[in-house]
């Protein structure tokens, strides 16, 4: 039995220490070890983006990242978007513009959109499409997702 390792990971501003097997994936760490099930497992093969989170500010697929790679790092998940009971403008916009149907892709979509708007606060529709190219949605056809991101960008520019 390979030895376990101790990791310290800060998730949404809260410090967690766990003893884990090195093969534990970051997504399993989030869901099983610390109980944050907002991050979804879609394909589990690096393609769909449902498991998207940020690690030290970088957008990553947490099914394609070992939890030990996040040791000492900061992770932000969909649970970290809401602040003091207030939804993030992206969350509000997804709700207002029907940017989701079944909601399975939504946590990953929100994290990818947030990362996009941090780099490019007023993206064109084309840039939005490119920004979420790593996130698949089987339901919406993307039209309303793009509308929602566009609306959130406008709103966030306004504040």
């Amino acid at each position, binding site marked *: 039995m390979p030895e376990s390792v101790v990791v310290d990971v800060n998730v949404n501003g809260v410090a967690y220490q766990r003893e884990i097997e090195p*093969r534990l994936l970051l997504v399993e760490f989030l869901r099983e070890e610390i109980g944050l099930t907002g991050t979804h497992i879609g394909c589990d093969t690096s*393609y769909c983006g449902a498991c998207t989170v940020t690690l030290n500010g970088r957008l990553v697929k947490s099914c394609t990242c070992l939890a030990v790679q996040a040791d000492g790092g900061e992770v932000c998940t969909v649970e970290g978007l809401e602040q003091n009971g207030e939804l993030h403008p992206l969350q509000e916009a997804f709700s207002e513009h029907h940017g989701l149907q079944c909601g399975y892709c939504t946590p990953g979509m929100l994290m990818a959109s947030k990362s996009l708007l941090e780099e490019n606060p007023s993206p064109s529709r084309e840039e939005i499409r490119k920004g979420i190219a790593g996130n698949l949605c089987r339901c919406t056809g993307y039209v309303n997702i793009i509308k929602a991101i566009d609306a959130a960008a406008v709103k966030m520019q306004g504040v």
Partner: protein
Amino acid sequence: MYPAPFRYHRPEDLPAAIKLLSRFGDDAKVLAGGQSLIPMMKLRMGDIAEVIDIGRLSGLSNIEVRESTLCIGALATHAKIAASELAAGIPALVEAAAGIADKQVRSMGTIGGGLSVADASGDWPTCLRGLNASVVIVGAAGSRKVPISDFVVDAYATCLKSDEIVTEIQVPLPDANTSSAYVAFKRAAAAFPTCSVGVQLTLENNICQQVSLVLGCAGPTAVVSAEAEAQLQGKEINSETLRAAAQTIVAASDPPPDARGSAVFKRAMLETLVVEAGERALARCRGEAVNGGHRYA
């Protein structure tokens, strides 16, 4: 899906990493960004007992110019290269980096990893071959520098020994008359290209002084053709001369029919992409700003 159990090592520096590799030999694999290794381990491909995480080694992700050579640390991510002002001097590099997968994969995956995987459809082996890059390798026996043409020896096979690590990729900086382009045809962002083409061109008074053409996804390793290049040397570059050279290099290639397309489709696509990349490189040689980007299905 979990990888099979393994032992995890996070060496402090490069010598420590090499010591671990020497100790464990073929049981060990280095982990850079993990964007190829982790999916492979989840599919239980290979027998990997020891994982040596080099992802945090310092000094291996710099991008800098030394002696008219662009030196890219093996751990530089695709995202970092795509955004690098220094790399922007070699448009093909930026086009390859920015077109790999999606933002998530680009933010973790590294040039050293992409090259070492030596996937016949991988963007780095193709792009870097067209730019005549060299690869700096450090191992227990010291360091060596090999031309890219000797680094990739077959599909998924490199000249790396089990105790060796790629530390740097060196790309000669082009002179004022030289420019490049790299174009792929892809079915989706998060997918390897179906076909890809790199062109580097040196132009004087509209006449081609030097050219390098390379095809990806068109055989076990990147395809080059001295005959096709000779066809362009000393000639004016235009869509006709490019088309003729494209036909020659495509005839020398062997694209495998697979789920991404038949061989006939790929040959036609490769030919079109050679002309497109050639025209883009040509425009850049003339000082025109041309936006890059791949073709998507």
